[in-house]
């Protein structure tokens, strides 16, 4: 545990654990938090994990942690670390097992008031069209050859199969296809896990949610994104399923000996890594890109299925039942990007684990319509509470390697949540507050109770106050689908 007295206040929204805190640190830990959020996160091991992360060889600048930070394994959730490319390292554990876990937001011109009577039917239809829960398979059965195409082409594979529009791809991080994927670097085990799972949500904190756009804060940005007050929107939160889990498992295992080969000493074996310019580092990067592309394709197939559900229930009842993409972005990923550090543009590998990319206006890789406003940043709240749409800023580029928070962030353990919250009671509370819900497990529902998470409004106020993102819209849920 890092004592609070060791943490220096930089501003109302920023704190620092200086590099001098421990000898082996290669940079400081910069924390985006209010005092209250800082006190909350100092109750677990997340700050210690952030300090450990500063020992990664080739670290550039500081390890950053977002206000939704909480304890993970090895690298904290909400952490961002950039390593110099190509001589620095890449660490699979600093990206996470669910590679390219991420969020997609779809908007609509469906007025909430006009479809209130059909929300129950829509809930059932979404639950039927979007497989969720532990061990669930999708309708698509990929051959090994098709899986390899998904690995390389990502969302572009789904477009060829009729699951995606051009706009979907344009409004996805990296257009849903990261270059550098090589399926030969993926184990047969990972492939066997990946083949039946495309188009599935999974379980845990993954969800599909229908929201109302409750309030607009930045009309110009909202207009560019197609968000209008009172209209429905859809969020899809999931990742690369067993395919990504196995790839990370394989490489964390392999890197246990790789660190010895390259004389890398680390305070935690889950932080194992390899130099980016080593064969081992390159192999992981190529495999990670396969999982990232799989996850983009996964969310795209779910998008297609959600559209089918909307059409099935609302066609003929409302004039326009279509869902169009706002944005899709990853929050567990390692990305090779150029950033300006000390007035010099350098290439780095940005590890974001439980943190999103948040590129500011004019950044490369943004669709033309977002070039002036900055990249949309999607921050889902805990179940039953608000979610936020933000945009990246120039400040996020200068101070956070173009990164931002990814959600509310847990504050209560899963076992504690199950002890104190009854799933059935929670389900009834959500229903009484006007939220339709379908969940595979009541115990799983209890684990994801709002009380187990921080206040997402406070998290968003922090990144907004710190200047690394700007508020665009606040969403509130009306349908929740959970595994």
């Amino acid at each position: 545990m890092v004592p609070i007295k060791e943490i220096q206040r930089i501003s109302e929204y920023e704190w620092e654990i200086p590099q001098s805190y421990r000898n082996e640190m290669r940079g400081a830990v910069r924390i985006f938090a209010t005092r209250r959020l800082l006190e909350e996160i100092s109750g677990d091991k997340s700050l210690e994990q952030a300090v450990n992360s500063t020992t990664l060889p080739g670290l550039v600048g500081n390890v950053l942690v977002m206000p939704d930070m909480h304890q993970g394994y090895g690298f904290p959730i909400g952490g961002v670390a950039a390593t110099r490319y190509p001589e620095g390292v890449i660490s699979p554990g600093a990206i996470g097992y669910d590679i390219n876990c991420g969020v997609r937001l779809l908007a609509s011109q469906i007025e909430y008031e006009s479809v209130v009577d059909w929300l129950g039917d829509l809930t059932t239809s979404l639950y039927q069209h979007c497989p969720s829960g532990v061990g669930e398979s999708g309708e698509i059965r990929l051959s090994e050859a098709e899986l390899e195409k998904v690995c390389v082409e990502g969302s572009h594979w789904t477009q060829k199969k009729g699951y995606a529009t051009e706009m979907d791809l344009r409004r996805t991080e990296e257009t849903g296809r990261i270059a550098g994927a090589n399926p030969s670097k993926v184990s047969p085990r990972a492939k066997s896990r990946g083949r039946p799972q495309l188009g599935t949500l999974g379980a845990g904190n993954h969800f599909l949610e229908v929201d109302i756009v409750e309030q607009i804060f930045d009309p110009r940005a909202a207009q560019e994104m197609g968000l209008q007050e009172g209209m429905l929107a859809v969020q899809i939160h999931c990742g690369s399923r067993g395919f990504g889990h196995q790839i990370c498992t394989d490489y964390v295992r392999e890197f246990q000996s790789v660190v010895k080969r390259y004389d890398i000493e680390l305070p935690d074996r889950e932080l194992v890594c390899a130099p980016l310019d080593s064969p081992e580092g390159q192999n992981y990067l190529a495999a990670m890109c396969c999982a990232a592309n799989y996850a983009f394709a996964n969310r795209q197939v779910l998008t297609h299925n959600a559209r089918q559900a909307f059409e099935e229930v609302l066609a003929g009842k409302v004039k326009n039942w279509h869902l169009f993409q706002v944005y899709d972005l990853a929050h567990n990923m390692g990305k090779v990007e150029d950033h300006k550090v000390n007035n010099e543009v350098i290439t780095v590998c940005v590890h974001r684990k439980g943190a999103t990319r948040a590129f500011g206006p004019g950044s490369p890789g943004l669709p033309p319509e977002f070039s002036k406003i900055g990249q949309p940043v999607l921050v889902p709240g805990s179940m039953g509470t608000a979610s936020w749409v933000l945009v990246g800023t120039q400040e996020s580029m200068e101070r956070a390697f173009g990164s931002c928070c990814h959600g509310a962030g847990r504050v209560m353990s899963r076992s504690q949540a199950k002890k104190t919250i009854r799933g059935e009671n929670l389900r009834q509370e959500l229903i009484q507050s006007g939220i339709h819900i379908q969940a595979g497990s009541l115990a799983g529902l209890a684990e994801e109770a709002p009380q187990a998470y921080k206040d997402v409004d406070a998290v968003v106020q922090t990144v907004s106050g710190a200047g690394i993102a700007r508020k665009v819209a606040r969403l509130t849920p009306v349908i929740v689908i959970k595994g």
Partner: protein
Amino acid sequence: MISQAPPDPLSSQAKPPHCLTPAIAVKPLFDCLKQCVAQEAEGYLKQTGFREIEHTADRELEVWAPDMAQLLETAARGMNVISGVLTADQVPQSRTIQFQNADPETLLVDFLNELLYFVETERLAFDQFHITETGGIWEARLSGKPIISQEKEIKAVTFHRLEVRRTEQGLTVNIVFDV
């Protein structure tokens, strides 16, 4: 500190499968657990068991056992409890897996991840274990049944702060599971 030098708890004692009661309150998941005689379980718990440790986002188990083979078995039982698996009342199925000798932590992660792979790809959960080590090769003969329901998906077994520690009773380890 070990009170008696031999046997080394990090090597297998090739003991027969044991029934045990988990140290946290859960409903019995397997026939084996149901058959446990309370008295036997009470005495056994002193040497072998597991309990859940609070973790903000993931799940953590503390596991203890007299030797490495039983530590592997007990950790597997603990993982079954975290998964919340319920199995069908069918004829048990057997599988055998082998591992190269490695450091105790790697062995533990390899073994548990192997079981997770069976859970996901074959929908099989094991409740009988016979684990031996011969000449640096570990072999686990497993017996289990098809899963009919599973409460929690475990993504992976992590190396986070993983250290198999020797105690006077044998071995103990804390394992963090990504869920």
